[in-house]
């Protein structure tokens, strides 16, 4: 799942939180023992963005397989809001669901600071699942003392999505192999963008925002904001500076549609054709389909990402210590993250599996919405080649400050050096 999803519908979010509390209160009377006595249990699941379980019919299937189990899901669209509310409830110790989703950018914070607030899934025999997951996915959710704090759901292997109809109008090639070659490097990608602008349809830019360009580029790096020993290194990280510089160049060449990712305007722009390319982690496919709708079918395609493979996002499912039905919750997340279910989810929703067994299962998957692009192969290759990222406790907040500063360059024409120092100040303020 991405860090921030779609329109910030705070009112809806607030409702979800209240609802979650109400649901918990409703099932507050039942304890573990009474559940097993009559075999009836209500498992509450609290997520952010769109994990797609409900949409893919997985809850329904699980309820059929396990009579007596009812699953109730609450969902907050924006991960930042979700995280705030989760932290408040963790601090208070109440109102927690049986299953809580955790974004990969937050998992280091959980393993390093809050290992005592979540169940060690080894208690329920999670150790046997270790070989089913990619090593990196598994180890990132392992605590200092070897606790297993969450089971991996999806990962975010990166590619580039583009509009074939707009490319045609601007006289660019539309074949995904040919494009992959033309933009094998990020410089090539920027050059092609400049070429696009010369003959582009009116009000159409090359990319949605430089924030997304930066995010996808930094996803290709092993070290981003922290080094392996946990020191904050972003300021002196040459790879980060490269991503910054390329984003600044894109902004200053007018390649960007200057949209704020996850804002309502950004959503509207998918259908309006305001941009010709958009950096595309696997979970973005479902988002594009949702925003561009049926009218967009066949106008999109997917090619390999410039500059190599990378990863952006992905999530975990965890069981808080304060949950009511821990045993039942574990059984549910074990089933949801099993290869069969992950493969099904990818085919229906586009969330790329983190279970190695599932990756082989979807190798031949194609997506008719994207001109039958071989998504199984494109994202599978990217997932295999993506570096194992070093995660830090403040990853999300640091990234937010940097993308904010880049937006200043992009939208206000702020001097890049000034913006860089703004980002520095912002990070100090965030972490201090």
């Amino acid at each position, binding site marked *: 799942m991405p860090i921030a999803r779609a329109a910030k519908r*705070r*009112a809806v979010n*607030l409702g979800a939180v209240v609802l979650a509390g109400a649901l918990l209160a409703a099932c507050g009377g039942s304890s573990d023992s009474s559940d097993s006595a009559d075999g009836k249990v209500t498992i509450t699941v609290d997520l952010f963005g769109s994990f797609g379980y409900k949409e893919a019919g997985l809850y329904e299937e699980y309820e059929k397989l396990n009579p007596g189990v009812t699953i109730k899901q609450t969902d907050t669209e924006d991960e930042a809001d979700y995280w705030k509310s989760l932290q408040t409830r963790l601090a208070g110790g109440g109102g927690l669901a049986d299953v809580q989703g955790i974004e990969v950018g937050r998992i280091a914070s959980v393993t390093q600071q809050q290992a005592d607030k979540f169940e060690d899934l080894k208690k329920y025999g999670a150790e046997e699942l270790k070989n089913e997951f990619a090593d990196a996915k598994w180890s990132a959710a392992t605590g200092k003392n070897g606790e297993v704090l969450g089971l991996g759901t999806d990962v975010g292997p990166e590619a580039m999505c583009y509009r074939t109809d707009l490319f045609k109008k601007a006289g660019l090639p539309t074949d995904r192999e040919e494009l992959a070659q033309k933009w094998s490097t990020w410089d090539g990608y920027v050059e092609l963008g400049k070429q696009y602008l010369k003959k582009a349809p009116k009000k159409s830019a090359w990319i949605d925002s430089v924030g997304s360009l930066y995010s996808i580029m930094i996803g290709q790096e092993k070290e981003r904001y922290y080094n392996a020993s946990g020191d904050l290194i972003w300021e002196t990280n040459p790879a980060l500076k490269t991503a910054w510089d390329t984003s600044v160049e894109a902004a200053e060449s007018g390649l960007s549609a200057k949209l704020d990712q996850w804002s309502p305007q950004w959503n509207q722009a998918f259908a309006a054709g305001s941009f010709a390319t958009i950096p595309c982690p696997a979970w973005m496919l479902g988002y594009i389909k949702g925003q561009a709708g049926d009218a967009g079918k066949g106008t999109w395609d997917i090619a390999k990402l410039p500059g190599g493979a990378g990863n952006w996002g992905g999530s975990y499912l965890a069981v808080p210590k304060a949950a009511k039905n821990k045993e039942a919750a574990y059984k549910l997340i074990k089933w949801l993250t099993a290869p069969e279910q992950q493969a099904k989810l990818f085919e229906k929703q586009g969330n790329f599996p983190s279970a190695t067994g599932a990756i082989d299962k979807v190798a031949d998957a194609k997506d008719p919405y994207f001109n039958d692009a071989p998504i199984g192969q494109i994202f599978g290759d990217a997932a295999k080649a993506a570096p194992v990222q070093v995660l830090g406790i403040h990853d999300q907040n640091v990234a937010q400050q940097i993308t904010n500063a880049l937006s200043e360059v992009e939208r206000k024409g702020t001097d890049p050096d000034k913006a860089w120092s703004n980002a520095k100040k912002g990070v100090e303020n965030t972490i201090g």
Partner: protein
Amino acid sequence: MTLTASAKPISPSRPPAVRRAWQKFSPYAYIAPFFTLFAAFGLFPLIYTAFVSLYRVELQTPGDMEWRGLDNYTALLSDDFFWTSLRNTFTIGVISTVPQLVMALGLAHLLNYKLRGRTFLRTAMLLPYATSVAAATLVFAQLFGRDFGLINYVLGLVGIDPVDWQTGTVASQIAVSTIVIWRWTGYNALIYLAGMQSIPGELYEAAEMDGASKWRQFFHVTLPGLRPTIVFTVIVSTIGATQLFGEPLLFEGSVSGGISHQYQTLGLYMYEQGWGFFHLGRAAAIAWVMFLLILVLVGVNTLIARRRIRKEAGR
């Protein structure tokens, strides 16, 4: 005292000492529910916030409190973001309050005439006030959209280039203020209207006999008569402006009040520190600074008002 006399024969069994004690303390018992609630949900949080503001506390590890003394407060002095948000609070406060009160005065004056459908108009004035901040702000955010917003579309019709209502400092502050103005003008107009109706009609008649125009009547009869009401609305609006939070938060859904903190108010900065970055100690310090700031502002307001009254009296 008369009550005591009449109560005597009704309860002859009660010893006088107990009765006297009851009489003395019963008022306290009657107001106790309010003060108990106030102590639990008003006073205690206030004091606990002051306590927390002296520590370094993080939401994720609330158990580890580290004594910082007044460091959280002194850090604010050299914190650019704090000064930016203070300045924004002030400018947004002025941009929203001044036009709001002036418009409210004008509207109240119009509503004070004998109009057809007066009750309907007066009720309609209160509708924005009854709308939730969230709903209103989300609608306004759409109207102020850069690419597909209605306002930029209308501006385009008269040949003005689209304005980026989110990014520009002035533009974004005007946009946020617009939401505040829309919500509160009607409310203030009704308060003014109530004040106007308590001005005796003879004053207007006398002014008319002296040949004063409607305008002169407004300036020399209505305004002086409304002075206490105006002081009240100014104080309430000042407090509201200092605490402004919902509109800037929901305008773009950004806790930083835009990419350059261009419309981040004090309330929003407190929220960002506390619930965005989880620095509860710092957020508590900002909360107390806001509290003191409001006290000072209200104090200044009252002083000015009092001095004016004294001046009038001395004239």
